[in-house]
């Protein structure tokens, strides 16, 4: 899995591409944590996980997202999810993760 970061005003879009499973989770966690650590000094920042290029995700992905949320919840960082496929949306909805990491529509 590859992650491409795009900064826009006070938002960072993390464009994930590839498959998010237990095998790729280790490097995804590392990459996201490096970014998030750098953002902890900001006054306020939005981090958007863009799933439009993610072809597959299993419940390991939920662990990765929840993990980032928990680790950085005491910082002024808001997390959002964008463009999940129908299949990924099904897994995300099932776990109720949208209650803490809302889905951006449009």
């Amino acid at each position, binding site marked *: 899995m590859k992650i491409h970061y795009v900064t826009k005003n006070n938002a960072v879009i993390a464009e994930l591409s590839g498959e998010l499973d237990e095998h790729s989770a280790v490097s995804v966690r590392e990459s996201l944590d490096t970014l998030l650590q750098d953002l902890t000094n900001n006054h306020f920042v939005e981090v958007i996980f863009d799933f439009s290029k993610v072809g597959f995700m299993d419940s390991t992905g939920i662990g990765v997202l929840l993990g980032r949320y928990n680790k950085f919840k005491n910082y002024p960082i808001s997390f959002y999810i964008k463009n999940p496929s129908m*299949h990924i949306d099904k897994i995300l909805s099932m776990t109720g993760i949208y209650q803490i990491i809302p889905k951006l529509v449009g």
Partner: protein
Amino acid sequence: MKFDNEFTLDIMALSQNEGFARSMVAAFCVQLDPSISQINDIKTAVSEAVTNAIVHGYAGKQGSVLLHVGILKNTVFITVSDNGCGIEDIEKARQPFYTTKPSEERSGMGFTVMESFMDSLEVKNKPTGGLVVHMKKVIRK
């Protein structure tokens, strides 16, 4: 059970084999002409079962994961088994968000995903040690 078609896959318990395993099962199921959504359900359920064997069953130790996929009429029967540590309390393990490894950021949703994406799920400890997961999905048109 006598199947119309079947295959067996014996892989080392390595995380890089998770993608291989789910893709093999998905490719084999194509003969039933499933929808993209049905194929994704199967791929995800297989990924959960194989990941569980690697992460929980073996927890870093060497071992192998055995997959058997059988097709009978319009139904896919999938068995994923390992020779790892098994699960002490299966009923508890099947509950949503239950994980023995919260520090590793496990979601505890593996069995819940398998259960909701497939038509049936059976989880058993093997008498010889290890776990066996049986899943079934009917490919309805």
